[in-house]
């Protein structure tokens, strides 16, 4: 573990998490969640968990984002909060 690299990625992850739940448009919220998943993948590769990073990049960031985008495009994009 490299301390400075670890800290910088964790700050980016926190910013993405706060942005994903405060944005009013649902589609941009879903895309920010995809960026959050890829930052988590970087964090796990940095911690030494390479298999978990692969699985997160393919399953969490790929299939999860696709499922959320399909759900948003079949329902509505606007939200009140």
């Amino acid at each position, binding site marked *: *573990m490299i*301390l400075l690299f*670890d*800290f910088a990625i*964790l700050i980016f*992850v*926190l910013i993405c*998490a*706060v942005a*994903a*739940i405060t944005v009013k448009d*649902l589609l941009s*919220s*879903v895309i920010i*969640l995809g960026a*959050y*998943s890829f930052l*988590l993948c970087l*964090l*796990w590769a940095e*911690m*030494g*968990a*390479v*298999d*978990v990073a692969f*699985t*997160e990049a393919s*399953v*969490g960031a790929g*299939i*999860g984002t696709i*499922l*959320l985008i*399909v*759900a*948003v495009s*079949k*329902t*509505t994009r606007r*939200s*009140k*909060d």
Partner: protein
Amino acid sequence: MFDFIVGKYNYWIYIILMMIGFYAMMSKRNLIKKIIGMNIFQTAIIIFFISIAAKRGATLPILEHAHDGGEHAIEAISYINPLPHVLMLTAIVVMVATLGVALAIVLLIYKKHGTLEEDEILKKIEFQE
């Protein structure tokens, strides 16, 4: 004091991340926002377990000198703990399965009521009765 903060600060950041997800699950009224909060909560737990496995000065859990006839002894201190990685690999797949079922239920609710806001859905249910 400095060593204490350096040893513990990442646990505190994981707790803040988990509380962001918890707050989104409780106070947001949109159903998709609630699902996004649940996703953040689960990933915070997974980060916590992966950080337990980390060791200072160790390498990836892939054996290096495996075919030299026992010339290099394999020591457990020089490889990262592989057990939390396996358990969290299972947890990530279960997380995506949960997301799929939750989004299917959300699609069904939208087809029946025409909205995703929780208070409007509750108002329509009361109006029907």
